[in-house]
């Protein structure tokens, strides 16, 4: 009895989470010329065709990917170095630094966005009135992804044997090489997780981009302008494609992870 109730409860919450998304997806195949969003009038792929012909969307997508790629790489480099630094700090300094690091995560997004906008506009004026755009977006995205990179690298560093690096150096390995050969392999899972996180955060970000984009359009900004206008089912088609991509990516990640776990278990058994 209680099992049925709890099953039912779980089903209901998942329905709550997925019903809107599924309805979006269903109506992306709706062949309606009146653009009604609640009357089904036949199956069609016209909104997908229109989507791919929409130059502005493709441009926005390209911008989004460029920004996500550069900012995630930048955040990973700076963040990993920072994590190594923080890991070597004394307890008190570490606590203080972590507090500042966590600040962008707890600060309301809109305040971060507004404050970065003030900064970029100030810089832009100082440089003779250049426009905000790609560069300001990349800088902003690195800034908000940094804490996430640091927080995913730090635990790996803590798990690592601190003497490994020293041992490598004692054996005559130069610092850079011993970092690459000894430290990096140990912490690479954390670094990769951090980078993926930075990448997805960057792709998804709207609020901070909205304030720092200048004349550049990213996908979320374009979606926003779409929702403010005459709404076309193109937006549904776009959602469906994004959802499909994410679903496939997550499945791949999950399958790989469970394989790893299996191998690990087998190794342990052996």
């Amino acid at each position, binding site marked *: 009895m209680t099992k049925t109730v*709890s099953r039912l*409860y*779980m089903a209901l*919450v*998942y329905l*709550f*989470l*997925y019903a*809107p*998304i599924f*309805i*979006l997806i269903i109506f992306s195949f709706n062949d309606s010329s009146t653009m*009604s*969003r*609640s009357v089904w009038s036949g199956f069609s792929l016209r909104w997908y065709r229109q989507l791919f012909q929409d130059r502005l969307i493709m441009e926005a997508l390209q911008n989004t990917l460029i920004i996500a790629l550069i900012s995630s790489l930048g955040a990973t480099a*700076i*963040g990993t*170095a*920072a994590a190594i*630094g*923080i*890991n*070597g700090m004394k307890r008190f300094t570490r606590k203080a630094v972590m507090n*500042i690091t966590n600040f*962008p995560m*707890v*600060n*309301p*997004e*809109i*305040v971060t966005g*507004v*404050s*970065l*906008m*003030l*900064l970029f506009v*100030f810089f832009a004026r100082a440089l003779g009135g250049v426009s905000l755009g790609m560069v300001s977006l990349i*800088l902003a995205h*690195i*800034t908000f992804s*940094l804490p996430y990179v*640091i927080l995913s690298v730090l635990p790996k560093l803590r798990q690592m044997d601190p003497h490994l690096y020293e041992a490598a150096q004692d054996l005559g390995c130069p*610092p850079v090489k011993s970092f690459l050969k000894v*430290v990096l392999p140990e912490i690479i899972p954390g670094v990769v997780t951090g980078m993926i996180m930075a990448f*997805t955060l960057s792709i*998804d970000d*709207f*609020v901070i981009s909205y304030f720092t984009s200048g004349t550049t359009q990213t*996908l*979320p900004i374009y*979606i926003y302008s779409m*929702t403010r206008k005459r709404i076309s089912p193109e*937006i549904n088609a*776009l*959602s469906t494609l994004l*959802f499909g991509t*994410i679903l496939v990516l*997550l499945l791949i990640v*999950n399958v790989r992870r469970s394989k790893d776990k299996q191998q690990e278990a087998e190794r342990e058994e052996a």
Partner: protein
Amino acid sequence: MIKSKTAFAPYLVWMGIFIIVPMILVGYFAFTDQHGAFTLKNLAEVGQYSNVFLRSIWLGLIATVISLLLGYPLAYLISRTGSHRQGMLIMLIMLPMWMNFLLRTYAWMTLLEDSGIINTFLAGLGLGRLHLINTAGAVVLGMVYNYIPYMILPIYSVLTKIDESVIEAAQDLGAGRRKVFLKVTLPMSMPGVISGVTMVFVPSVSTFIISKMLGGGGNLLIGDLIDMQFLGSAYNPNLGSAISLVLMVLILICMGIMNQFDEGGSEDGEGMLI
């Protein structure tokens, strides 16, 4: 260990330029007028919008409570299922988070409209239509929908870390299922609840767009007010900065309160484990 200072330097510079300086700029704008002269007028003017603050906090609180009431049982149930299905279920919680929140909110728009899918469905069943969109309820719904994963995930991760033997010990000592839950599981999951509450409350209070898309004209929140001053229809970045400053103070106080509970929670937890 690796020379920490060299590795840390780029980050330090970065934080200085992109976190500290912007905050100083917000403060500078909040305390000056258009011509850059010192003034307290902006801060005094923030008071005019006290009802917006009240509404934001109130709606944020309701959304947080609903998320907790909906999310806790779910996290609990997930943590009690077999380990193979657990990963799948948690992935399903996270999946919607990866979709842009504008699209998720937009989906609700099409559902809640007077001529939307829910109402078409109700009318088809012969039940009357309901007025759903452009109400405070719709805004709360949007918040709950967007932020409930942030409630479920931390609670779930704390619940899975609870040592089974503690619960077994309680049962051995004669505690019933209710008592085990109330005296052992619930107190031990408090850290998860606290971080869930924080992670839902902060974005709910400071959201903009959700209120614009689902709340019509009458349910604007602090976020909309700030947007209005910077890129919206009532241009006044000085007032906008002052509002941001007040919002930040408010959030920081809330975080302070939460932190107090959090420390206590983990200490209690540790104490119990020993």
